[in-house]
């Protein structure tokens, strides 16, 4: 069975009956390995469409997932269950439950090491009978940039639950097993925030997701903030880690900031050294996020200003037909209409009319580095969304979310096409742009190949750059 992968979370969706006979066929070691190879940081088993399961059946999944967690630190768990299934799972695994339980897939995403912060942020209501679980849930949510509201009693929870519209999400029947050791990451606007805590020593190199960070630099993020309120102290390994990070960021014109760090138990000269290396210190997060001018200057307000001009390589140009074919085929599949190639040119990205257009981008890196950008007229974007959503929509968040999935599908296709020619690449998380101006400032001064395609009298732009 193949997992659905979105935002670094892989979810298996078995259907029907799950027992000791059927489970080994539903999920194999190969399935788990194939999913793991997609750079995911959470693997879940959805019970939404499972009508029956027993301990033998579940054990097969749980053992596979737990051994994956032990090997790689990936968060593993079960999701999408009702009250009855939750009670059964708890009965089966009352002791030693190392995996997590998330009532819904959306709740699971709130605990993923990396996530996109919602634009309409509300607080999250949290309830668990066990006080230590309750606190763990709230702390983990807080570390990921959410605002948890923790209920102290069931009656308080039931009363607050009645006002569901006040909360972004209501968390109950959820249990946190062993979470990953990866540093929590969230994307807010155009800045990426990492939450670090305790002692910053050699361990930080292992718990920091360098692949994610590098891919974020590749797709154009230029503001990285370390939320260091909970850091107690730092040793020389921590210092080296930040120095190296700063050097790498400089190549991309990116800024690295550390917020809320106290130097009471850390040598004071470390701060000077880090400042010399280019890191910027702030006392409060709001000093950056609420200061629009500063945010713009640091590169977290939309696009980024770059001095680095990156040229297309011959290898990249040679692979161009494959990229275009993958895009055209996927577009045709999603819109069920025929595409016509209208114009091909090597230049800076130029969009004749930016109004009523949206865009998405995805980077790839490895034996070949590059960035694919797709610019859609909103009408085509909506049409492409219909297949995935199953209905027409005008909701811009739904459209952008689907475009991210869409560009992910294209990148997946490109990856497999390149793989057939022994070119190994990894793909980054997709990024979407509601306003084309943000996209244009991100790719500012980067030349690339622009292909304009026609779909049912509308023009769609494909742009490939480094």
């Amino acid at each position: 069975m193949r997992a659905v992968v979105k935002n670094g979370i892989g979810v298996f969706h078995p259907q029907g009956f799950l027992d000791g006979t059927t489970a080994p066929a539903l999920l194999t070691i190969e399935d788990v390995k194939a999913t793991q190879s997609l750079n995911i940081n959470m693997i879940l088993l959805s019970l939404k469409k499972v009508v029956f399961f027993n301990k033998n059946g579940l054990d097969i999944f749980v053992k596979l997932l737990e051994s994956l967690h032990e090997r790689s630190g990936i968060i593993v768990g079960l999701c999408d269950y009702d009250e009855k299934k939750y009670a059964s799972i708890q009965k089966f695994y009352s002791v030693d439950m190392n995996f997590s339980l998330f009532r819904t897939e959306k709740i699971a995403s709130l605990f993923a090491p990396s996530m996109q912060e919602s634009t309409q942020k509300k607080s999250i209501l949290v309830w668990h009978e066990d006080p230590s679980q309750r606190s763990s849930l709230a702390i983990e949510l807080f570390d990921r940039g959410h605002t948890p509201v923790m209920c102290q009693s069931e009656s308080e929870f039931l009363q607050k639950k009645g006002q569901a519209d006040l909360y972004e999400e209501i968390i109950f029947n959820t249990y946190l097993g062993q979470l990953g050791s990866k540093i929590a990451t969230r994307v807010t606007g155009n800045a990426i925030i990492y939450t670090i805590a305790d002692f910053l020593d050699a361990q930080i190199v292992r718990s920091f997701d360098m692949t994610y960070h590098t891919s974020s630099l590749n797709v154009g993020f230029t503001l990285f903030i370390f939320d260091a309120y909970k850091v107690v102290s730092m040793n020389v390994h921590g210092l080296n880690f930040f120095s190296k990070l700063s050097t790498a960021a400089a190549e991309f014109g990116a800024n690295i900031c550390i917020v809320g760090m106290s130097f009471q138990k850390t040598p004071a000269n470390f701060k000077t050294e880090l400042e010399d290396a280019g890191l910027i210190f702030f006392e409060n997060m709001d000093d950056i996020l609420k200061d629009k001018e500063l945010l713009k200057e640091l590169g977290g307000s939309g696009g980024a200003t770059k001095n680095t001009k990156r040229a297309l390589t011959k290898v990249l140009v040679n692979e161009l037909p494959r990229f275009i074919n993958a895009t055209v085929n996927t577009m045709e599949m999603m819109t069920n209409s025929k595409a016509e190639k209208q114009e091909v040119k090597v230049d800076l990205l130029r969009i004749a009319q930016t109004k009523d257009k949206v865009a998405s981008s995805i980077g790839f890196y490895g034996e070949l580095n590059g960035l694919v950008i797709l610019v859609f007229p909103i009408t085509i974007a909506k049409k492409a969304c219909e297949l995935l959503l199953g209905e027409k929509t005008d909701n811009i968040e739904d459209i952008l979310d689907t475009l991210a999935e869409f560009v992910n599908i294209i990148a997946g296709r490109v990856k497999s096409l390149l793989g057939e020619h022994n070119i190994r690449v990894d793909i980054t998380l997709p990024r979407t742009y509601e306003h084309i101006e943000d996209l244009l400032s991100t790719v500012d001064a980067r030349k690339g190949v622009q292909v304009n395609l026609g779909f049912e009298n509308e023009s769609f732009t494909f742009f490939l750059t480094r």
Partner: protein
Amino acid sequence: MIKHEDIQAYIHTIPPSPVVLKKVLDWLDKGELTKAASEAAEDGALKLYLQNIVNKPIYGFKNDIKAVGQIFGVLGLAQAEQIIYNYMISLLAPARWELFTLSTKEFSQIQDNLGVMWKRILEHKQIKEKEIYSAISLLPAAIIVCEALFKSKKEEVSLLRSAKEIDYNTILKRLSGMDLFDLCAQIAAAWEMPEIISTIVLCSKGTNEETNEDIVELSKWMHLLFFYQLSQPSAVEAGLNDFIAFNIDYVEDIYEEFQEVVIDECAQ
């Protein structure tokens, strides 16, 4: 990916029902088992099919049965008709499966399992109409239609499904306005199957707005039975577990009864 014209083209490829089978079914319809058997015995392929099928352990007959008359005799009218329809549907199956990792034998096994369990359900519900026994025969046609329409789109669908939890049936419906069950109904119409067969099968997708409560009840059993079968290891390995969406809410109220009638019985 798949347009309405592709579906129309597929419908045109459905052959008319073979004359011999039509005659066999006519005799069965009139309750003439002996005449139906002698008509069936004229067709070598059908005779061989019946001999192979009926001597499988799942049918539970102690002795090897060779004569078609005997086969029809032990099966009875309702099950004989069901098996003839199974044979008709199997004629549409490809010689080589590409989308699903199935063989002729494995597909036939799915038909047999569904047929035997459906019979058990109908006996439990004390339903005697032989057309209703035959309704289950049409259901596996959904697998054949899916194979035919999607076998050349395997990679595209696989990519789509890696980003979104979406089944073949939903993809087809969103792209063309028709789904696999609608196409099964087209097959039933082309082969002049009794209308109740396609009505139950259409309703069994779990989304149909059928008002007849008896049909809805039967369709729930059929939906759950199909997913019970699609959860079996051989079906999972063939890639059939999630080719259509299971509507768990649709069958919630019959689940416990289903467990007693089908699962517990099978375990014995």
